[in-house]
């Protein structure tokens, strides 16, 4: 450690801090300011006080987007459970297991746009694979416009998010499982645990750091979802805004309808939600530490 005052650490930090100041700190301040203005990006912003926020509270589309974004959070516990199960299944020494792990991982690396397009066609009314099978098997009398049905659009988007994340999260859990000492399982066997109890009492507590990590990143991804909705609904947000989420609504207001002031107010709501999330998350982790 250097004793006397030196500028060295500041030189080391300067490039990163400059970039972060310009592209994170300044935008946060600017978005707060814009949210109190009438702003179309082309002409200078006009101060209108709280009008955007008053409009927001009375805007049924905003409430729809907010509700959908919260419904989207169901994807988080679902993907955690499924990926832990997947990790337990692939955590055994079988011939070719590495190939299977790679196969499960393909959706996670292919990029959400390519996958989204594939899914859009899967659910297509003319020539979609799903309709092809369902009509053939007699489940459906005629092909269904899955993505034009308001009731199905959001669940299909959530399914896509889960399907894409599964392989990546399972890898994280697999690494966690392989860190749990084998003796713990042997001891459980001696104590007469069955297969399910073995995982319930040993794997789950052992995976705690991974569950926290996946919980945080997958819930943030869910509340900030955009790509899946954008592709599956062909940039519309779905029939009757059925799959409209917060980020999609921000994008539509700011960049399609050039209402950046209102879009900024929506963005502030999103920020408050993610802030609340982080506080809850820290609390939960602290409580977990106390009981440990």
């Amino acid at each position, binding site marked *: *450690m250097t004793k006397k*005052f030196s500028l*060295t650490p500041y030189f080391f930090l300067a*490039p990163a801090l400059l970039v972060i100041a310009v592209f994170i700190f300044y935008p946060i301040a600017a978005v707060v300011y814009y949210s109190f203005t009438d702003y179309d990006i082309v002409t200078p912003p006009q101060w209108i006080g709280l009008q955007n926020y008053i409009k927001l509270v009375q805007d049924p589309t905003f409430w729809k987007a907010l509700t959908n974004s919260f419904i989207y959070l169901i994807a988080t516990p679902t993907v955690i459970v499924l990926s832990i199960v997947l990790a337990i299944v692939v955590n055994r020494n079988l011939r070719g297991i590495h190939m299977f792990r790679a*196969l499960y991982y393909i959706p996670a690396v292919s990029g959400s746009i390519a996958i989204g397009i594939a899914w859009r066609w899967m659910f297509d009314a003319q020539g979609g*694979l799903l309709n092809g099978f369902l009509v053939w098997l007699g489940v459906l009398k005629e092909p269904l416009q899955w993505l034009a049905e308001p009731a199905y659009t959001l669940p299909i988007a959530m399914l896509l998010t889960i399907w894409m994340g599964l392989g990546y999260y399972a890898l994280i859990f697999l690494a966690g499982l392989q860190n749990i000492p084998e003796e713990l399982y042997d001891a459980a066997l001696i104590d007469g645990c069955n297969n399910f109890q073995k995982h319930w009492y040993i794997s789950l507590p052992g995976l705690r750091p991974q569950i926290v990590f996946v919980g945080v990143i997958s819930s943030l991804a869910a509340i900030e979802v955009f790509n899946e909705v954008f592709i599956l609904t062909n940039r519309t947000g779905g029939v009757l805004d059925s799959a409209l989420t917060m980020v999609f609504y921000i994008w539509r207001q700011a*960049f399609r309808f050039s209402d950046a002031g209102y879009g*900024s107010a929506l963005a502030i709501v999103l920020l408050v939600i993610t802030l609340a999330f982080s506080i809850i998350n820290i609390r939960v982790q602290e409580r977990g530490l106390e009981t440990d």
Partner: protein
Amino acid sequence: MEQTQTAMFHAGALRQKYLENTFWYILLILMSVVTVLPFLWIILTAFKGPNDAIQSYPPQLIPHDPTLANFTRVWNLLPVGHFFLNSITVAVVTTVLNVLITSLAAYPLAKMRFPGRDLIFYALLVTLIVPAQLTYIPSFVLAVNFFHYYDKIISLILPNIASVFNIFLLRQAFKSVPNDLMDAGRMDGASELRIWWSIVMPVIRPSLATAAIFTFVNAWNDFLWPSLMLPTMEHKTLQVGLMALQGAFQSDFRGVAAGVTMTVIPIIIFFVALQRQFIRGLTGAVKG
């Protein structure tokens, strides 16, 4: 007597083992059908000729009249080569600059004592919870009015050459480097920059790889910001270009499938080839 018994026991255990493995393989295959089927279907459709059915019951998977015409049609209508080149440029330049800049910043945060360190640390920590999309409206205004890089791919690079996530990841790595190493360098009269580059950086190479992989994947898959920045077809990255493809080939499923196949296959090969590093990188971030 005893021997036959153990033999029988072995046969039983083997049978049990055999049954168990069969069960696991069936499960593994069923699960891979779920993950791979959409890709397989898209790839097969890309080779379908005009006489192959798109809509049929049961669905026709295998093309009877295979052709490469769909690929040439896409290639002639869209600058797919540009898309690739742009994506590679953005991802590589972003990754190299980002890892350099964030490791430079992470080093003093981990290993030096100086006024304002805690303030900087907590200010950076807070930004981790800010959704990236929140910054897009002001960043758009900056791009158009200040940086004047709207419709240029540098607009995708510059905002991403530093990331708080990597600073924290690398700070953690630098902390585990023993101080003796650096003190030895100081005794030899090396400058801090030299100590950072030739003594400490080599030690944390695995973490640098993790940071690089994360940055690369994020840059490669980024969609919303590039879609705001790149209206000209030749300037688009792969993800934005794919979306343009879906628009240009609206109801031509064979064309869309060919485009998706062309863009996805190289990526899958790339990641499967680097699978080992990739998995280590992604799982290594949990502790970071």
